[in-house]
């Protein structure tokens, strides 16, 4: 299908300043390498969508690439806060960040609605509490029972971005393990990018695997280790120590910026990023 490109090409072609982009991954298969490439190419004014923004979104926000965040849980899983997200929200640094906040159930329904080409998703949610008055949610009435339910506007990102274990040479993308909301992200988006750990001749069937056919993925780019510090089931483990270390890196604006300069902006791709991290670890 001719969707195989380099990650740099994919970002250049498919992601523009001001776009709404969803880099999804529910703790697993987080497309960090794409986030780094967005920064290397200097994308700005992005609306970032994600259920569970973590380190890579902290990086994008801290580097000033995001105008708005649409999310449901923004923390460092098992560790604590996202310091750059907090700095943006609490102090407007490096610039103010607009928030559109949902619950997980609302975000999931919004992605599913987008994938199904519906303008809204329906759920039993947003009942009471303070959030419904502060976000984009409405009610719909069941025409059969009269019940009131919550409606969330469908997510229709400009670009849906995921990381997967493998693709074949035709560009079909296969992922397994925890599946998150990745299929919906690709199908809800106008354009899509998948980075993969490897490209193989044939995708042999795997228990629990799903395949996104080549004709729904605009670009497939090789990015081994591209989920770091998240993991790729069957390839490498979650770098739990990095999540802990991130707390210290992100706590201080200068430390953060120096770290991003050294490991992201001054590296050309995911290979150099990993080499840079390894060199720093050796130096300690």
């Amino acid at each position, binding site marked *: 299908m001719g969707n195989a490109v380099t990650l740099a090409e994919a970002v250049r072609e498919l992601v523009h300043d001001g776009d709404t982009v969803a880099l999804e991954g529910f703790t697993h298969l987080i497309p960090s390498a794409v986030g780094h490439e967005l920064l290397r190419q200097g994308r700005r004014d992005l609306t970032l969508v994600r259920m569970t923004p973590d380190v890579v979104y902290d990086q994008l926000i801290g580097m000033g690439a995001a105008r708005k965040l649409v999310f449901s849980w923004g923390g460092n899983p098992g560790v604590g806060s996202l310091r750059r997200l907090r700095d943006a929200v609490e102090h407007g640094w490096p610039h103010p960040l607009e928030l559109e906040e949902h619950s997980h*159930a609302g975000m999931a329904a919004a992605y599913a609605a987008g994938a199904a080409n519906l303008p809204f998703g329906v759920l039993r949610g947003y009942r009471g509490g303070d959030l419904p008055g502060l976000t984009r949610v409405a009610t719909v009435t069941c025409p059969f029972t009269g019940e009131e339910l919550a409606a969330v506007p469908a997510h229709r990102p400009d670009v849906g971005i995921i990381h997967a274990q493998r693709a074949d040479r035709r560009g079909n993308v296969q992922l397994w393990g925890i599946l*998150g909301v990745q299929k919906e992200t690709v199908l809800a988006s106008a354009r899509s990018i998948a980075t993969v750990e490897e490209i193989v001749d044939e995708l042999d069937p795997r228990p629990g695997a799903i395949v996104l056919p080549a004709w729904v993925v605009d670009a497939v780019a090789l990015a081994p280790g591209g989920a770091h510090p998240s993991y790729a089931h069957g390839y490498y483990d*979650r770098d739990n120590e990095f999540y802990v270390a991130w707390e210290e890196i992100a706590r201080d604006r200068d430390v953060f910026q120096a770290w991003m300069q050294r490991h992201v902006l001054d590296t050309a791709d995911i290979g150099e990023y990993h080499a840079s991290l390894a060199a720093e670890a050796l130096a300690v």
Partner: protein
Amino acid sequence: MSVDVQAPVSADEMMAVEASRRLRDGTVCFVGIGLPSVAANLARRTHAPGCVLVYESGTIGAKPTELPLSIGDGELADTADAVVSVPEMFAYWLQGGRIDVGFLSAAQIDRHGNLNSTVIGDYAHPDVRLPGGGGAPEIALDVADVFILLRQSPRAFVEQLDFTTSLGDNVRVVVTDLGVLEPRDRELTLVAVHPGIDVERVRAATGWSLAVADDVRETEPPTELELQVLRALRTKGR
């Protein structure tokens, strides 16, 4: 693995043990990371081997050998009876009414069991931006029984929440580092204190005028078996 069951019982251990005792064999529980995961895994290894662990990442019937550090750990998928997508988890399983017990925690709780995990201060200009509700708003209403695990202090147990993230309607118990609260007439009421804790200390750690049951009991300290299993549980990668 050699385990020291003589070391003093920590507050976290007491909370995990007390929560685990409330899970029955066959209970389907929605588990988060940290103490809830400890409690559910402890229950599964002691009195409730048929307790079903569901993580919001989509793993149903996960049987981790080590405690996960994140709800998306690979071992949860490897050991699960089924792995489903996140939209399916929230639509068919949580909203579908298939989950018996959900564990929640928060930065703040009020006397009705309402929780705040969104902001300290004003929403538009917060003093502290917390991670947010995540699955909590719907967990709080879609499971039959909500169990809360939360360390007790006047900063956490507040007269007035800065923000209401989830509602307390289905809260059945709040297990703290000091004791156990249960709703009586819609107000969280101290029903038990942990060994060595007196009621006054619990009152002092509560930001509202705490209701106390007439028959406050002392929680059973962890049994040797509970401690042994609990201390053998090891968090992966830690």
